[in-house]
């Protein structure tokens, strides 16, 4: 029996994709992905690097993508998020929203308020998860996740494109001990892009990359197919 129809707030990074995976594993019916494209790279709510490639990821999952643009101004972002969720509710009859929130009370409580107002269930299956255990689960479940942005000392451009594997986990744990870098990047220290996972019908292949930045702040825009 298929479970509740849900939309996933989808950024293309590891957290929203792994949440979608957990929901599917527990028999929830994912009917669409919802992405808010922020024009502000310092967005309060949304993970921005490589977000335009979410369309390719949605195709790989065989799911429709509900798109909403936002200028990325603090409270207007929330109105745009609400518009996106309303669109998904109307088009796909979703009964619940799945998010990849780990620890951010700012992010989680705003989404909870929107869902409460729209009479939708809100699922945060990664809420308060132990970061090391989480990365181990990603590796065990064959998620191919690469680093597409770094934003904290001592991370630099050499981390761009690195895959989250045992070697990454070992290195990031060391940086956690020495510099307090969050193991899952929850403090915005790094951002990720999913190239493959059990929800994808085929893995994505990188066709082009564009690197920009300086010091300890770098982004790698990827093109995939």
């Amino acid at each position, binding site marked *: 029996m298929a479970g509740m129809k849900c939309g996933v707030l989808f950024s293309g990074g590891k957290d929203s994709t792994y949440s979608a995976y957990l929901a599917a594993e527990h028999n929830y019916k994912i009917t669409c992905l919802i992405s808010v494209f922020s024009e502000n790279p310092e967005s309060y709510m949304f993970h921005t690097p490589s977000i335009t490639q979410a369309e390719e990821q949605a195709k790989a999952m065989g799911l429709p993508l509900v798109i909403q643009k936002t200028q990325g101004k603090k409270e207007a972002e929330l109105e745009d998020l609400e518009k996106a969720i309303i669109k998904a509710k109307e088009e796909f009859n979703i009964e619940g929203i799945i998010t990849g929130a780990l620890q951010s009370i700012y992010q989680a*409580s705003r989404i*909870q*308020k929107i*869902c409460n107002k729209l009479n939708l269930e*809100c699922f*945060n299956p990664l809420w308060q*998860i132990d970061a090391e255990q989480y990365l181990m689960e990603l590796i065990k479940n064959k998620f191919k996740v690469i680093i597409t942005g770094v934003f904290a000392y001592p991370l630099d451009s050499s981390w761009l494109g690195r895959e989250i594997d045992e070697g990454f986990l070992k290195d990031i744990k060391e940086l956690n001990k020495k510099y307090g870098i969050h193991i899952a990047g929850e403090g915005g220290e790094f951002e990720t892009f999913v190239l493959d996972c059990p929800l994808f019908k085929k893995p994505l292949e990188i066709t082009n990359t564009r690197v920009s930045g300086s010091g300890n702040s770098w982004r790698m825009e990827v093109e995939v197919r």
Partner: protein
Amino acid sequence: MILIINICKEKLHYFEFVKPVESILAKAKIDFKTVHYEKVTDRELFNKKFKKIIICGTSLKDNDYLANLDKFKWVKLSELEGKPILGICGGMQVISLMFDGILVEDTEIGLTEVFFNKRFLGIEGKTKVYSLHNNSVLVDDRQFEVFASSRQGECIQAIKHKYKEVYGVLFHPEVLNKEMILDFCMRK
């Protein structure tokens, strides 16, 4: 060993409302067993190896547990006398209702300032907590003492039974006040 009671209707909510409590106990090397309220047996509830019971919370839209209060009669049983119980959010609502309290509509979502007028599970004074509820409670003050509230006393946030080791918190200590859960588990 702690018996954790899951009150979530939706399977996926286990990860959000129960697993974080399990993780706090696991990190402190405290043994636990988790059982859903619809499946918990008298054998488990009365088993002496379970020294204490924690009833976890659930989502804003989930009110199934309120329609099944007959499944929580054990909260009041004299056979459980002396076995401490901590109810979190929906768990506190269950405790209050079983002891003649009233449910009132009241929504708080996100960071909330709570004032503890007395020390409660290791916390005192002004404290920031994480709230996620559409209902709060009014307790029978012959049976319960109120230890904390938000909005100048408008919303009851922490209670303890006057004669039993039965505690309740309306907020979610597993998010910002993990030490309260450990205090409950470790206190003699």
